[in-house]
């Protein structure tokens, strides 16, 4: 009987599924890429025993990329730079210059795969900035993208305070006497040695490791440990679980070092251990200055200059003036890079700073215009989630208050207008967001490129932000 044999076979297969022990699938190889624009991970493909990765997938988050196949040839265009690849050929040409890929280029169904080892030579030719590739860990750092950490151990309490140069979001796993923190999206690097030993049984050491696109920080101890976040994700404190504090604490004797609190502008120390060199103070970013336009987007024409060049000059001067007043500030576009409005919003939101200021320049009108966001229709915020188009809504009163402080200071020197403007990325930001449009004082566009005028405006803007600081201080 045929149907009986079919049933029997099906039953055997089903039984086999339960009986045969599951063989763990090999871990998928991943490449993590960290850049000032975006942090992301890609799957690594193996071809002929070598690791390959899709080139378009790497470049897509970094700019505008298109690719087309012409027989065995593959042409790629990234931010107006042309590159030619040929299937099964180890040499590519970027802007006509030959690049050695070390292994053959692979073309599969229109998808171009390049050897992982070629990224250190290939990417700088597209991006114009150096990259650092941790080959064995498959972690690629573009430009200055890196988050460093320092460990500060307090024997008296006892607790370990880990300070990070920017906010981090690790996955934390605890096991007896160990806390493992996995940083998938954070470009974490140690500022000192990979292993730091503490003279304590409670928390004995920290170890940094990186593997398969992930950085892992392990804190070893002899008691159950707990991790807690503070300082807007820039500080992680590791302390014994409450029931295990008493006994081991008695074994430590060195003086206590205060841990950074959750104040709005905490000082962060950078020393691997209490016995190390004196800490170098690093401050959290309070203001993000976005030099508008840049790269392909030249902005308005200002005399013989492009708006993008004028805005960066103003942004850098404002940063300097703020830093002179003790306010840490970051220029979001500190080079001639093309950044989309979404990228600007994501980067600014990632800094968790207290104020965002987009700097624009115009040859129309006189003085300075200070704008807050004109919110678009729809997309109401609901519960813990913020609608992208209306993320600014809850920060608008603070932004308007800051705009008034800024306008008051500017008015002492220049004509000022205040308005709300329908412009992005103001409405996408999760901090009080302002835009500044700097026009001339007398109608002469040359003023906008004059260091004296730039200094006058930058100084007034910095005074305005100082005046608004108390209103902006509350962490969000």
């Amino acid at each position, binding site marked *: 009987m045929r149907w009986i044999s079919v049933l029997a076979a099906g039953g055997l297969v089903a039984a086999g599924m339960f009986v045969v022990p599951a063989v763990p699938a090999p871990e998928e190889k991943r490449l993590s890429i960290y850049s000032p624009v975006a942090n992301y991970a890609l799957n690594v493909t193996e071809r002929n025993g070598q690791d390959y990765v899709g080139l378009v997938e790497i470049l897509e988050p970094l700019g505008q990329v298109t690719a087309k196949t012409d027989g065995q040839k593959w042409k790629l265009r990234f931010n107006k730079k042309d590159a030619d690849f040929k299937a099964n050929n180890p040499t590519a040409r970027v802007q006509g210059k030959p690049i050695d890929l070390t292994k053959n280029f692979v073309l599969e169904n229109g998808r171009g795969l390049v050897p992982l080892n070629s990224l250190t030579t290939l990417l700088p030719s597209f991006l114009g900035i150096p990259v650092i590739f941790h080959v064995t860990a498959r972690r690629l750092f573009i430009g200055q993208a890196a988050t460093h950490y320092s460990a500060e151990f307090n024997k008296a309490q006892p607790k370990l305070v880990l300070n990070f140069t920017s906010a981090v979001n690790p996955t934390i796993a605890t096991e007896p006497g160990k806390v493992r923190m996995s940083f998938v999206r954070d470009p974490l690097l140690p500022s000192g040695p990979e292993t730091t030993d503490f003279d304590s049984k409670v928390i004995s050491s920290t170890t940094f490791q990186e593997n398969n696109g992930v950085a892992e920080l392990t804190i070893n101890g002899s008691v159950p440990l707990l991790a807690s976040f503070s300082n807007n994700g820039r500080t992680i404190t590791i302390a014994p679980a409450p029931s295990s504090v008493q006994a081991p604490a008695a074994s430590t004797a060195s003086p206590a070092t205060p841990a950074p609190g959750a104040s709005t502008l905490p000082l962060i120390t950078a020393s691997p251990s209490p016995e190390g060199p004196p800490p170098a103070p690093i401050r959290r970013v309070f203001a993000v200055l976005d030099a508008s336009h840049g790269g392909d987007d030249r902005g*308005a024409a200002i005399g013989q200059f492009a708006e993008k060049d004028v805005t960066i000059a103003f942004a850098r001067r404002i940063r300097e003036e703020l830093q002179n007043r003790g306010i840490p500030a970051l220029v979001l576009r500190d080079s001639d890079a093309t950044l989309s409005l979404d990228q600007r919003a994501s980067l600014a939101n990632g800094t968790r700073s207290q104020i965002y200021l987009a700097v624009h320049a115009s040859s129309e009108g006189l003085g300075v215009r200070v704008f807050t966001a004109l*919110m*678009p229709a729809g997309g109401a915020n609901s519960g813990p989630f913020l609608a992208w188009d209306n993320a600014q809504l809850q920060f608008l009163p603070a932004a308007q208050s800051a705009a008034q402080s800024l306008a008051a200071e500017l008015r002492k020197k220049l004509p000022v*207008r205040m*308005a709300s403007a329908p*412009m992005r990325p103001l409405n996408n930001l999760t901090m009080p967001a302002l835009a500044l*449009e700097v026009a001339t004082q007398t109608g002469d566009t040359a003023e906008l490129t004059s260091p004296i005028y730039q200094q006058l405006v930058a100084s007034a803007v910095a005074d305005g932000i100082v005046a608004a600081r108390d209103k902006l201080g509350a962490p969000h």
Partner: protein
Amino acid sequence: MIPRHLKIGIAILLVAVLVAAFYLRRMRGRAATPVPRVADSRPIAPPVAGPTEQVTLFVAYDDAGILRPQSTRLTLPSGRQQRAQELLRALLGIYLDQPSPHPIPAGSEVRAVYLVEPNLAVIDTNAAFADGHRSGIFVEELTVTSLVQTLAANIPGINRVKILVDGKERETLAGHADLSALYDTAAVSKAVEQLGSSQ
């Protein structure tokens, strides 16, 4: 001998056939006669003459940096959509005049205004309008708010406005004013008030 009821039946049938033939002949004649075209009341071009209506255009003035409500009389068609188009064309006409309070590029045009939902108006401008527009937050804001405010003030029931360029969505007007989102007419109205008060 034919029964009487059969005779009556045949007679009725004959009468019916005759009436039907007559009716058919008449219908055929009517079908052959061309039907005179009913005049289309919808204007195919904006009327150049006829009764005028009082409307308020919100005109941008670069020198003062504000929108000024300007009452004027226009000859408008009866449909809401066509009225919206004519209003905005009149507004752009002011900007295209010499001297202009808020110059816009030559050839700028409102291609159409669509009232796609009862409360949503979509303004479709041409490429000349956006491509040649002066770049700057303030100057672009004046243009956008004057279009939205003029529409909201004269076409009742519109509370959201979308601006397209050549029928397509565009990120910004000339690098600054956001065209990707829908404009809330109430928010624009407040922004216009703010412009006037911050002068």
